[in-house]
């Protein structure tokens, strides 16, 4: 996973750099900090599953707090309130587990797992400890949010993914707790996303929903694990495109994009197309990369939890679809609001629009050719296990 994350973060670094030259985010200090966040994340993924990697990724998280600080101190304080305990808890847990290399004797193993779960829940903003997310989403620029959701959170989830490979007992022996956390985030995130009127908040909560899916994949293993890999990539690319599109629209109309905004497609058509492609790919509509991940997650989830879990996943997906389609149709498509006058001086950057469109289209290309990604498709072992079962 680490090499893929390295390439992903490099791609996002280039995209973010190009984007922020035309859609201003917060001055030179913001630009410098954003560069540091991405570089630390890249360095962390290059370092791989090691203490150096952990330290670099934690540093990236702290820099992300500084990034938010440049835009709103209250939001940054709240984010700090989550990040610092999260770092301490995960460091303690990883220390006890020696990065997953050993299983301590009981009850230390249980203590470590508790610390790990709470720490990662705080980092990823899972339900019920998402308290930092609304504040950060409401008061930060779109690209700041994109960096947190697509780089910092994805890197953190990458750590969890690696732990799943090195110490699967952390998940399989305590599956009930992980499952509860995944379901709470899956359904809670979807419901809360539907309740939002601000598009950045909506996108932030839908990330929580998606993290629930990813956790389910980790828990299921096999095809679910490869589904998590594909979905994690899709999550990062789609969310970058979605936040980027919203950022362009905000720059164009000079105010936050909410469900009361109308007819953006006439003003920013490329950003509108980007939002639509990104949204559908994210939800898992073919032929996007999200579909390649999601069908594995649906299958693994159903095999693990039976029809009840299948229904939960379906409900969450349906809620996500309704949320995104409502946003598309109320905000982007349809007639514009004559009362909303755009300043004549504001010209949408073609560069920024092109960048986000490329990000969205890349999810479609990878969805058509997932074999381009050096991820195991997870199906060979799955098919073999079915064949063995049939033979029995």
């Amino acid at each position: 996973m680490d090499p893929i994350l390295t390439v992903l973060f490099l791609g996002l670094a280039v995209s973010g750099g190009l984007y922020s030259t035309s859609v201003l985010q917060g001055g030179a200090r913001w630009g410098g900090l954003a560069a540091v966040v991405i570089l630390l994340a890249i360095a962390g993924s290059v370092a791989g599953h090691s203490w150096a990697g952990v330290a670099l990724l934690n540093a990236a998280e702290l820099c992300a707090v500084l990034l938010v600080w440049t835009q709103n101190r209250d939001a940054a304080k709240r984010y700090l309130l989550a990040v610092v305990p999260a770092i301490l808890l995960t460091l303690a847990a990883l220390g006890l587990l020696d990065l997953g290399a050993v299983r301590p004797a009981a009850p230390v193993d249980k203590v470590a797992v508790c610390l790990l779960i709470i720490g990662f829940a705080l980092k990823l903003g899972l339900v019920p400890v998402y308290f930092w997310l609304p504040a950060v989403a409401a008061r930060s620029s779109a690209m700041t949010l994109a960096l947190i959701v697509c780089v910092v959170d994805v890197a953190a989830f990458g750590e969890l993914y690696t732990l799943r490979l090195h110490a699967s007992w952390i998940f399989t022996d305590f599956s009930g707790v992980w499952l509860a956390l995944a379901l709470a985030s899956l359904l809670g995130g979807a419901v809360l996303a539907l309740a939002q009127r601000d598009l950045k908040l909506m996108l932030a909560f839908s990330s929580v929903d998606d993290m629930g899916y990813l956790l389910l994949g980790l828990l299921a293993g096999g095809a679910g694990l490869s589904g998590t890999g594909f979905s994690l990539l899709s999550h990062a690319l789609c969310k970058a495109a979605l936040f980027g599109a919203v950022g362009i629209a905000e720059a164009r109309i000079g105010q936050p994009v909410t469900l009361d905004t109308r007819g953006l497609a006439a003003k920013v058509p490329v950003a509108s197309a980007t939002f639509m492609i990104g949204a559908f790919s994210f939800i898992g509509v073919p032929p996007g990369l999200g579909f390649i991940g999601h069908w594995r997650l649906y299958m693994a989830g159903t095999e693990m939890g039976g029809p009840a879990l299948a229904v939960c996943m379906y409900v969450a997906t349906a809620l996500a679809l309704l949320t995104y389609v409502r946003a598309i149709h109320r905000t982007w498509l349809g007639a514009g609001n004559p009362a909303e006058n755009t300043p004549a001086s504001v010209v949408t950057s073609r560069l920024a629009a092109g960048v986000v469109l490329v990000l969205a289209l890349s999810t479609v290309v990878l969805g058509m050719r997932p074999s381009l990604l050096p991820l195991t498709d997870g199906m060979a072992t799955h098919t073999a296990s079915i064949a063995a079962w049939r033979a029995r």
Partner: protein
Amino acid sequence: MEPATFPILALLAGALLQLVFARVLTPAGKGWLATIAATAALVASLSLLPSVMRGEVLHATLIGQWDAGMAVDLTVDGLSMLFIVMGTLTGAAILLFSVSYMKDEPQGLTRFYTIMLVFIAGLLVLACAANLLLAYLAWEVIGLCSYSLVGFWYTQQHAVDGARKVLVMTHLAGYGFLFGILALYSATGTFVWSDPVVAGKFTTGIAALFLVAAMAKSVLFPLHTWIPEAMNAPTPVSALLHSACYVKAGVYLIARMYAIGPWSGGHLSTALLVVGCVTILVGVIFAMAQTDLKRLLAFHTVSQLGYIVAGLALGSDLGIAAGLFYCFSHALFKGTLFLVAGAVQHATGTRDLRQLGGLASVMPKTAKIWIIAAASIAGVPLTNGFVAKWLLFGAALDKGLVAVVLVGWVGSILTAFSFLKATVNTFYGVQPANLRGKHIHEASPSMLTGMGIMAALCLLFGIAPQLLMIPLIVPGVQSLGFHWDVTLSWFGILTDRGAVQLSIGAIVVLVSVLLGLAVFAAVRRPAIPRVSGFTGGEPLPAGDRPGAVDFAGMAEHAFHPVYAADPDPLYFGLWRRMSTCSTAVQRAVRPVLELHPLVAVSLLTVAVVVGVWMP
């Protein structure tokens, strides 16, 4: 490259060329390019026909590597061939119509033609998909294409509202197909539908999941309510969506299920038959109340899909043949009807039946084409619609299901009434005031050719149905595991089963009508009223004529309870409750989880500790 890939490649090449030459081509040039691509696809499809007629199954690979170790593999059998020819034939005719119809569109033509070609290609991939996951991909690509095309005028609220409804209703139901596929895979370890191991695991539950998806796509009651809203699309889109590329995807899936595994014969096929019959009646009753020409046609699509699915649900060789023949015939006459509606709107600026009339004098060729297609949908002899109904009724009688025949018969009568209304109000009588003095023109040659080809085929396959039956329907039926030799002669007369009962029934109907006429003539010969149009019943005062509103009013009065059965308010209520519920949840949890982080962390800690320490 294998020949079986040519039809799809021709369409995709056309789409690619649209993008490459977007800045060079004129609006008409884009239309011609799309038409040529679709025609090339049709020719390529027809070149495969001899092999398929010999019973061969063609295999090809479109993309070497896709997902989960699978390639994008195609399998072309009799059923695939039927849908390939139907899609490319109607697609080519509709694109030819579009050349002139769309040329004045100020923007978005590259997008329009590109997506139209991908739309047709999507149907072809679905029909040829060798594995079910690829079929699902094509299923959803078709959905996305229709969403984009219905919302083509994306700054118009009614257009995007229609697109939203199409997407939400069909995509959410489409998960039935995906979850069914995944359940099959979990049980068998393969996505290849022709693998014998799949048949053994194709349970009733999985079949039911497939059917839910098919019901939404094929506008079966109660999942049909998206289709009237989708008519806010440009007319060629409506024609393609209604005739071949969208609603027929569900029909394909239902038919294909016979090849996947045994599912019919039990409660599920009975339920599908009931759904088909209810859909026939609901569709036509709602159609009768419409005053918008395209909306009326949209509800007739619902009704006609009921006939097709009822035929397939019968589960016999003749029933399947009837369903497939009906499917192809519907593509021809419904495509024609939508194109004529578009030509009328193009010429007059309206499709409101209350503002139309007397167009036969200024659009005589268009009127003739309409009448052929209208006669076909109503099941008038010498048209393919008659043959389709004849086959269906024969198949139902063959299984002793008189109720199905009765429902079909009532549906046909109401369809005839509805089209009499539409025909008279559009083409006959006196031109209404809003059209007088307006320059109303006959459709252009390319539009007439597009419509005319399909109307001519309606007549051809009505007079000589063997021409459709032998090359396409019989291989289609046989590819689903039924062994049936065609016994159809000229005019659709069956020469073996069901013919006697059906002929007796037809004679009884004919005699009843003649007797009624005789009694009417003998008892009360009415004075010839000086009315300007067909009254549909009692003569009206001189100079007056029953308009679309009168007819709609009568229908609403007569079928009032049926209109109350519209499931849309239920869906809307569900959405509203969900929305309210999510807001309430947010309000409830915000003070605890967002504003008091310590409480949130404590809650999680307690839950995790309890969970981890629990045995």
